[in-house]
């Protein structure tokens, strides 16, 4: 079968122009779908009256954005970081300290935290990206824990006590809204759109191809001229940048942070899981995964685990385990499979 297909030139070889046009059309379709989905998500908070559900929505959008950020390094570039809580914490603390102690606008704080986190990611990446696979993952865990320990013992940032945002009237200038959750839903959505767009653009650039090559096979990537180390550094910096913005937004949303509540290991896991669940290295995986995972965890925590019975953890852990083993390409791949099957039939 393969023998014949190798010798005979295929009769239906499409011309280069047709192929390029098809590709451009596919890209445009992705953009339209994106615009549609995000418009729907922007309207959604108005349709939900229940404050509890609005909270679930804000968290879902925020974790989708954070997971999309993680996805840039973990999903596209294949460097499984389990220490992104560090960048999240940097963003949360930078924004909070600048605002609470120095009256700096949280908008500037978000930017400062993002740049700081990206720089820290580069400093950490320099030694750690020489480590492969699991070694890298473990290094990220240890470094994030060390960061947590330092913040816990650093009086300047409030130590274990944390930082409380002052009570102010609702305002977009200070990102403070006492009861209204809709602005936070839009802020989280804004971050999600930003990360989605960055992914969309970068995936079809030199960097995107380089990342995926590095993920699949660094030795082959190198032989094809890909600067492996630089690719990883770039992915880490971009990923940390957006994770820190998410941290800053989260701080403004909960208006009180302490080391455990923004830097503990479970956040690192929470950033990775939606993408893993939905499909790593895909445009929509993080959002799909977050839309499944966050409501389930929030609701099961409320109804099953209110007394700390542990059933929510059993459920959650089981889900992660089963998806990882049964669907390593994520839930999204189920749809791809069925589309491929349809094409086959057609």
């Amino acid at each position, binding site marked *: 079968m393969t023998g014949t297909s190798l010798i005979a030139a295929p009769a239906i070889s499409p011309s280069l122009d047709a192929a390029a046009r098809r590709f451009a059309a596919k890209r445009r379709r992705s953009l339209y779908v994106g615009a549609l989905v995000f418009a729907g998500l922007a309207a959604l908070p108005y349709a939900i009256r229940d404050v509890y559900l609005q909270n679930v929505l804000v968290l879902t959008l925020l974790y989708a954005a954070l997971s999309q950020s993680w996805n840039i390094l*973990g999903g596209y570039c*294949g460097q*499984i970081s*389990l220490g992104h809580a560090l960048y999240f914490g940097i963003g949360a603390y930078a924004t909070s300290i600048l605002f609470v102690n120095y009256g700096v606008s949280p908008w500037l704080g978000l930017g400062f935290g993002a740049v700081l986190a990206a720089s820290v990611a580069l400093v950490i990446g320099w*030694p*750690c990206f*020489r*480590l*492969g*696979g*699991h*070694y890298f*993952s*473990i*290094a990220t*865990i*240890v*470094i994030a*824990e*060390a960061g947590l*320990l*330092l913040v*816990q*013992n650093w009086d300047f940032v409030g130590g274990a006590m944390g930082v409380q945002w002052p009570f102010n009237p609702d305002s977009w200038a200070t990102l403070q809204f006492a009861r209204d959750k809709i602005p936070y839903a839009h802020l989280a959505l804004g971050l999600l759109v930003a990360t989605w767009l960055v992914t969309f653009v970068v995936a079809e650039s030199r960097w995107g191809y380089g990342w995926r090559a590095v993920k699949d096979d660094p030795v082959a990537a190198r032989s094809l001229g890909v600067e492996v180390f630089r690719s990883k550094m770039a992915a880490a910096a971009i990923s940390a940048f957006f994770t820190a913005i998410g941290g800053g937004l989260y701080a403004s949303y909960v208006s009180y942070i302490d080391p455990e509540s923004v830097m503990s*290991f479970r956040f690192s*896991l929470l950033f*990775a*899981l939606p993408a*893993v669940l939905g499909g*790593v290295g895909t445009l929509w995986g993080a959002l799909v995964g977050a839309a499944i995972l966050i409501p389930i965890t929030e609701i099961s925590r409320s109804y099953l685990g209110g007394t*700390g*019975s*542990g*059933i*929510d*953890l*059993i*459920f*959650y*852990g*089981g*889900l*992660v*385990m*089963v*998806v*990882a*083993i049964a669907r*390593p*390409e994520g839930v999204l791949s189920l749809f791809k499979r069925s589309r491929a099957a349809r094409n086959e039939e057609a």
Partner: protein
Amino acid sequence: MTMQALVQVLASGLLTGLIYGLVAVGLSLIFGLMDVVNFAHGEFLMLAMYLTFGLVVVSGLDPIVLMPLVAALMFVLGGTVYLGVVRFAMRAKANQGMVQIFATFGLAILLQGVAQYLFTPDYRSLQVSWLGGKTLDLGGVYLPWPQVFGALVSLAAFGGLYLLMTRTDFGRALEATREDQGAVALVGIDRNRIFALGWGLGAALVGLAGAVLTVFYYIHPGVGGAFALIAYVTVALGGFGSVFGALAAGLIVGLVEAATTLVLPPSLKSVGVYALYLLVVLVRPQGLFGRL
């Protein structure tokens, strides 16, 4: 500070270090065998502690007596986890490394949930051991007997491991697999059997550590996390896959941690260990006794 106080600190660091080595060695063994990091390693330890706790409550026996039983049950658990979970994770065609990480992480969360469901999140401790509260007086240096006992168990376990790896067919098969994955097929060993036994052995070793720890450490569903972190650092320091590297690194970690408490407040006792880890990553990424 007096000389005696220094010796006191170093001696207790040494004891802790031996126990850390025992906590970590199973992780290293499994990694060396099949290149898989068990991210549920800490939860294995937690489970062994609850197992000891439960058995003590049910039987009324001393945890020391129950230790072999705990190790045996953990052996079964480890083998089961390999056959029931890890074996399938290793078959993944796409994202292999990621699948292993999240399959074992999912398991870790699940085990925490099971512990919480069965035992509630409360902290518990066993006060029933014959060793509890006793101290050993070595010329003015006082060492708590539970830790001394734990250190002795660790030494015995490493001794046993040495004999196992050098004197038995299983040990040689294990060594062959560690050297070269392909060798297994050549020697005609059943890969799955060796891997299942390896997981059993790794779990039994951390089970011993868990049983020892119940005598002097509190038990709760999240206890695995802290020890898992130390185990990762220990294994990274000793060299992934190096069994006796884990022992040496455990000792170093215990000593560094003890030494840190001499200069920094107790809440920062891990700083020295983290710093040491970062130094190793920078200078010798393959660890002291490992190969990359």
